[in-house]
């Protein structure tokens, strides 16, 4: 079989199978002939190595041209609307929780800094001896760091979950309209190993600092007030 015959048979078969862009496909094989012949192969050799035109045309037919939709698209869209409503509420809660943890982090860090600096805006912070305040400040700042790390993790998790859900949605629609399915996204948050290690270390250190600072602060307060419930002794929370 020579070049002309190969291309003619390929074109006929592609036309018979109602495949689009026949010219483009045929010109690709024409190019293949040109490259191979430039390397010194004869037309017959190239055609033999290419395989039978009929078989190749059949492979184009299965190359995603004749894919049929897998189900009713309208039904899928309707189902997705309900799922979206549900998942939407879920994501609002998750994002709200992330925001709450972020606010906790900022609030405890600010409170700790105020105690440390002996700064009491609008007398909002109840009075306590400076030594006790120092210990409490340390534990509050540690809590701020700990919740910042928590917020980071949780934020990454929520973002990842949203992505996984987005991919799931996309794949459902793709399956319904016969398009290609993309690989699913794992909802596991992903940090590079080095960042992961560092975050974990920061979380552990700040957790320990928080616990030790809080216990030490409590003991110091109780000792200096002479009462276990030192807030009563110092008249806190009393108008």
């Amino acid at each position: 079989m020579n070049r002309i015959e190969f291309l003619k048979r390929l074109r006929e078969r592609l036309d018979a199978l109602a495949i689009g862009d026949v010219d483009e496909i045929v010109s690709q094989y024409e190019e293949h002939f040109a490259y191979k012949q430039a390397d010194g192969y004869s037309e017959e050799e190239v055609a033999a190595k290419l395989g039978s035109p009929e078989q190749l045309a059949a492979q184009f037919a299965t190359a995603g041209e004749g894919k049929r939709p897998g189900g009713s698209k309208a039904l899928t869209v309707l189902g997705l609307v309900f799922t979206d409503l549900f998942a939407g509420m879920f994501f609002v809660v998750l994002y709200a929780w992330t925001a709450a943890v972020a606010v906790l982090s900022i609030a405890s860090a600010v409170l700790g800094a105020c105690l440390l600096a002996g700064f009491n805006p609008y007398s909002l912070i109840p009075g306590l001896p400076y030594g006790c305040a120092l210990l409490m400040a340390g534990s509050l700042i540690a809590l701020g760091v700990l919740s910042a790390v928590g917020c980071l993790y949780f934020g990454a998790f929520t973002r990842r979950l949203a992505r996984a859900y987005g991919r799931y949605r996309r794949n459902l629609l793709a399956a319904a309209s016969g398009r290609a399915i993309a690989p699913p996204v794992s909802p596991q948050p992903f940090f590079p190993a080095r960042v992961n290690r560092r975050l974990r270390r920061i979380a552990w250190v700040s957790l320990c600092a928080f616990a030790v600072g809080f216990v030490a602060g409590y003991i110091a307060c109780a000792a200096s007030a002479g009462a276990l419930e030192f807030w009563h002794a110092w008249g806190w929370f009393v108008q």
Partner: protein
Amino acid sequence: MNVQYKKGVIELCVLSMLARRDCYGYDVSENISRLIDISDGTVYPILRKLKNDGLVTTYLQEESGGPPRKYYKLTKLGREQYLSDKNEWLGFVESVRQMLEEDDHEQD
């Protein structure tokens, strides 16, 4: 080896080549048929399928002394698909290897 079976593997090989660099059709066909015994023409339907699935895109690039070549480029989705297929394949090969080795021990 079964042709249908090979086709799936060749799809992975094509993705792997494109993950390294953008290639034109003949380039892919040559590289793969050098390593795997398969008809030269088989790569073109695979490239077209990958394009239909949105895993690759094409662009034309002028070459000195010749018609412009159609280059294939992996999309973000294609890269993702490649990594997931690659891991799946490596896991599969490992299980098959273990199974065949167990078979060897029993024969000893």
